[in-house]
């Protein structure tokens, strides 16, 4: 079957003790007696070289330094010399070991089973990321310190989208200003249960992602942004359609404009930036993506998230006031007539 390779037969001192909850420095020292040698490596059947060196200092600095010992993760390595392993490639070795994390991090591990990456792993895609691809192995450090590290981690594979994000209003604030409020990849996509943007329902749910910050009055006040954007969107034709379609099955979800369709996704700019898709000079083009044949007037049918006032939308405002007066006046008048009529009928009897 699989040809196997033997890990170098190394004689080590006292590795008889089983994995204990408390790290024992002598365990680590015992392992590092061999694995502390930088030149220690093995050549795999694929021809790749797998280093077997562990950087003592890097491990000590890692989040697990001083907390875990080698055999807490490498639970199978109880004997010296270690038993033969059937790995053909470095990747096979990584994939075989990544599940070690779930012994402690079970909640996050089980979240990854709902991740968009997991089906790729499950169908045997060796390039799909596992724990250590994002977090590292012996040198694990907090994944969000600094916060800009998150998008750099995703950028290892998702280069195009990360470059676009880095130029967006959010990405620039994160990278250049070290802003702690702007969303980075995981705020919208999550870290472990990463949702696929092509999953059913994701599109229609996306306004919620925007709302989680843009409906937060305290946060928006800091940047002089209005939280009215959600209400004005939801009250309009597109927002109403999106809200109602969400209640139907995902297959019934037809096309309607969501936040991202006008403002963009990873390339979101300030609304008054020159290259903004919603600035007056560009908005007609944005409308025409869904409404071919739309003219300049058509784009001003959308009141740009403003509540209609006498100043910015006098016609809409006038209609609103007219009916606010007309409806109660009309219905009140008719009810009064009815009451008078009834009263007279009673009096006549």
């Amino acid at each position, binding site marked *: 079957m699989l040809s196997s390779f033997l890990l170098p037969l190394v004689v080590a001192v006292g590795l008889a003790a089983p994995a204990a909850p408390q790290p024992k420095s002598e365990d680590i020292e015992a392992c590092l007696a061999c694995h502390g040698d930088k030149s220690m490596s093995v050549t795999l059947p694929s021809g790749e070289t797998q280093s077997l060196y562990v950087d003592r200092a890097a491990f000590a600095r890692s989040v697990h330094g001083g907390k875990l010992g080698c055999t807490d993760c490498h639970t199978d390595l109880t004997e010296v010399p270690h038993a033969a392993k059937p790995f053909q490639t470095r990747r096979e070795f990584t994939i075989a070991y990544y599940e070690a994390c779930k012994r402690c991090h079970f909640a996050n591990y089980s979240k990854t089973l709902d991740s968009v990456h997991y089906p790729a792993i499950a169908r045997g895609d060796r390039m799909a990321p596992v724990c250590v691809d994002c977090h590292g192995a012996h040198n694990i450090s907090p994944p969000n310190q600094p916060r800009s590290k998150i998008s750099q981690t995703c950028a290892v594979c998702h280069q195009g989208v990360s470059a676009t994000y880095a130029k967006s209003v959010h990405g620039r604030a994160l990278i250049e200003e070290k802003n702690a409020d702007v969303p980075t990849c995981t705020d919208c996509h999550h870290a472990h249960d990463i949702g696929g943007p092509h999953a059913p329902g994701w599109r229609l749910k996306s306004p919620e992602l925007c709302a989680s910050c843009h409906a937060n009055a305290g946060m928006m006040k800091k940047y002089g942004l209005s939280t009215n954007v959600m209400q004005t969107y*939801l009250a*309009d*034709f597109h927002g*109403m*359609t999106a*809200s*109602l*379609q969400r*209640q*139907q099955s995902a297959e*019934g979800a*037809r096309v309607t404009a969501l936040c991202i369709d006008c403002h963009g996704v990873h390339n979101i700019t300030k609304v008054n930036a020159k290259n903004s898709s919603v600035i007056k000079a560009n908005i007609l083009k944005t409308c025409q993506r869904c*409404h071919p*044949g*739309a*003219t300049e*007037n*058509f*784009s*001003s*049918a*959308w*009141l740009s998230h403003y509540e*209609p006032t006498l100043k910015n*939308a*006098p*016609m*809409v405002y*006038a*209609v*609103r006031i007219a*009916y606010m007066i*007309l*409806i109660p006046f*009309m*219905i009140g008048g*008719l*009810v009064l*007539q*009815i009451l*008078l*009529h*009834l*009263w*007279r*009928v009673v*009096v006549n009897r």
Partner: protein
Amino acid sequence: MKNYVTRFTLKQRIEHASVMTLFLVLALTGLPQKFFEASWAQAIIGALGGIDRVRWVHRAAGILFTVFTFTHLGVISALVVTGRAALSLVPTRQDFLDAIQQLEYYFGMTDAPAKFDKFDYKQKFEYWGLVLGAVIVIATGLVLLFPIEATRFLPGEIVPASKLAHGNEGLMAFLVVIVWHIYNAHLNPDVFPFDPTIFTGKISAKRLHHEHELEYERLKENE
């Protein structure tokens, strides 16, 4: 005089039944769109098969309603121009005098209620309210159905203004029908529980005498 007088022709009865049906369909599919955030509205939209279908039905019914309205107005205009229809629904000075007298009667300032001809001022008010309301919902509805075409020659603001006017006019029409029409055709002690005239086309001579005395007298004279 016979016990019954024919008040509405078959064509008029069919017209009423059609408008009534379309009005109900339009209200049922329109009001939940205006109040889409309310749970009752969402329940209706769900029961009807979702917002896309509700919109489709509302638009189809609206187009039919438009055709009916224009046909009605066209036929009436043609009949009036060729002198084959009486102007029995046109408001006159007498209607205002009748309304004032009727109010005086309600307040007990006079013991004589106003005497009416074929259509009293309330009926004329309701008819013209329907016609005017129909013109508004048809015009604004067409803007909403064809926003790109409408904004070729109208300012963009016409679209949100039409949306607001369409919903409010529809709501007002619905409330007028609920309050006024239901009272006059059902709950009014004179006709309770149901005035079948618009469906049978017939009205009893007794009621005609009571409600449209001038017409009654005229018919009697012509006998």
